[in-house]
């Protein structure tokens, strides 16, 4: 049997075992269900409002036609059902991230606690292959979890709102699904890696959460807080009626400050995930109704950061040798 096939088969064996275990793990099942429900609650509420808008227009149109009037006097509302996914994206950003970190921790802690790590590493399998299989397991878990969330979205949204999803909408959902997989897999790798390397897996999980809070939650908040335009509701420039040219001139005087503020915001992978997905789904008004091609071209930088984040963390996990002192849960 060729060695490469044998290695692939061994990696698949580990990945499939992880998948089977996830299906029997109450934490995973509860977490996926909770994420789906949380995502759907805001979606259903919005979809009902959308349904109301569509129904009001239909009633008005029917009334005009009944009265023998021209129905074109009232403009058909522009309905963008994907805009309703704001809550879903925000749940993935926070709740999904927490689940991914904890799932990564559990994948490492369980192997250490059961001593199965030592059993696997004394099999004819390179350490990096074992780690790659575990990361593939994390990627699969993210894909399935988000698949459940977005499949439920694609089914429920048209049902509740009465507004069907076009092929373009489904393509946008697929792109956001892919971006979500990247985002959650990167965080899974962070939780897994730190829990594998730390003296105790729990210390690794705490470190992972500290990093996540710093980069994902604190940094964007600092960036937002430092933005002068965010200091007054509606925006300070709008409130003071400062023209765009004048705004640019004022900002130019604070170039260093803006560079620092922008840098802090750029450090947040969540911000990049949000910028990409809000644009693709048209949640941000400036992108609503825009064709997908130009949006992707404009947001390729955010996509690139997401890819580099996941590949970078995955690469570090693969390349860092496993410390034999970490074969058990307590050292």
């Amino acid at each position, binding site marked *: *049997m060729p060695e490469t096939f*044998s290695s692939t*088969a*061994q990696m698949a*064996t*580990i990945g499939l*075992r992880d998948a*089977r*275990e996830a299906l*029997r*793990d109450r934490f995973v099942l509860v977490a996926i269900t909770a994420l789906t429900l949380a995502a759907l609650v805001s979606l259903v509420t919005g979809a009902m409002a959308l349904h109301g808008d569509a129904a009001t227009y239909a009633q008005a149109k029917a009334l005009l036609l009944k009265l023998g009037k021209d129905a074109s006097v009232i403009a058909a509302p522009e309905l963008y059902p994907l805009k309703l996914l704001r809550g879903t994206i925000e749940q993935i950003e926070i709740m999904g991230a927490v689940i991914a970190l904890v799932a990564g921790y559990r994948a490492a802690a369980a192997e250490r*606690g*059961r*001593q*199965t790590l*030592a*059993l*696997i*590493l*004394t*099999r*004819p*399998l*390179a350490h990096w292959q074992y780690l790659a299989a575990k990361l593939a397991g994390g990627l699969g878990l993210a894909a399935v979890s988000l698949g459940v969330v977005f499949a439920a979205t694609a089914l429920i949204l048209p049902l509740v709102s009465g507004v069907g999803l076009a092929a373009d909408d489904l393509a946008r959902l697929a792109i956001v699904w892919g971006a979500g997989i990247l985002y959650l897999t990167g965080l899974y790798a962070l939780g897994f890696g730190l829990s594998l390397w730390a003296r105790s897996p729990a210390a690794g999980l705490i470190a992972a959460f500290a990093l996540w809070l710093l980069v994902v939650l604190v940094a964007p908040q600092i960036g937002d807080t430092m933005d002068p335009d965010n200091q007054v509701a509606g925006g300070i420039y709008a409130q003071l009626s400062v023209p765009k040219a004048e705004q640019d001139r004022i900002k130019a005087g604070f170039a260093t400050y803006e560079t620092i503020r922008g840098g802090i915001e750029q450090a947040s992978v969540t911000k990049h995930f949000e910028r990409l997905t809000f644009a693709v789904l048209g949640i941000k008004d400036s992108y609503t109704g825009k064709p997908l091609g130009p949006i992707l071209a404009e947001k390729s930088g955010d996509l690139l950061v997401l890819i580099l984040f996941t590949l970078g963390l995955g690469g570090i996990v693969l390349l860092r040798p496993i410390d*034999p002192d970490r*074969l058990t849960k307590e050292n």
Partner: protein
Amino acid sequence: MPGTRPTDPAIATQGLTLSYGGHTALHPLTLEIPRGEVFGFLGHNGAGKTTTIRLLTTLLSPSDGTAQVAGHDVNTEAMQVRAAIGYLPENVRLYDRFTTRENLTFFARLSGVEDPAAQVDRSLRFLRITELADRRVGTFSKGMRQRVGLAQAILHDPQVLFLDEPTSGLDPMGVRALREIIDRLRDRGMTIFMNTHLLSEVARSCTSIGVLAHGRLVFHDRISALDGYDERALEELYVGVAQEDAA
């Protein structure tokens, strides 16, 4: 197996050493264990027994010296060494949401066994645990888990079996059952390297012993009940060696 001869010792180390951060966990260890031997490795807690097993099973890399297991170098032929060994760590728990059969099939596949299902059945029969095959490991007693752990270690018919404190935490019946399994494995010609601090276990099952104290091999010899090496004699030997080392 290519590159190895039947006359090669099962385990041979030359100056095998492990040092880190100014501390030497294992002083140069030179040891030869012929094939088919049951080697009992004795020593106090922290003497370096588990470190030695980790070096021989390729979990650790030595800082100096060499070691061959089943004729393969642990540094340069780690994959061949891993294919030739079985390992049972202390307090192994396995995947507790999985049944015995699922656990064993997983490890059989990782070991590249050609017909995992058949090999799993053979191992279950050999260890007389067929009644545990479809029960979840999480519900097992320590003794049952230890037997399943042993089954995963011998699934692929390894040439050398490493057992780290295999009787730790077992009740007398569990110790007896495990001892009987070790005897049958020895009868099959398997080389067994066993870390232990139970002298009764050594007296009953081993054909040679080594005593490790503070990372140094202070005694190594073949033993036999016929030569007077019963449990009491072993105890005197062990205490004498330990006191000599302490002095």
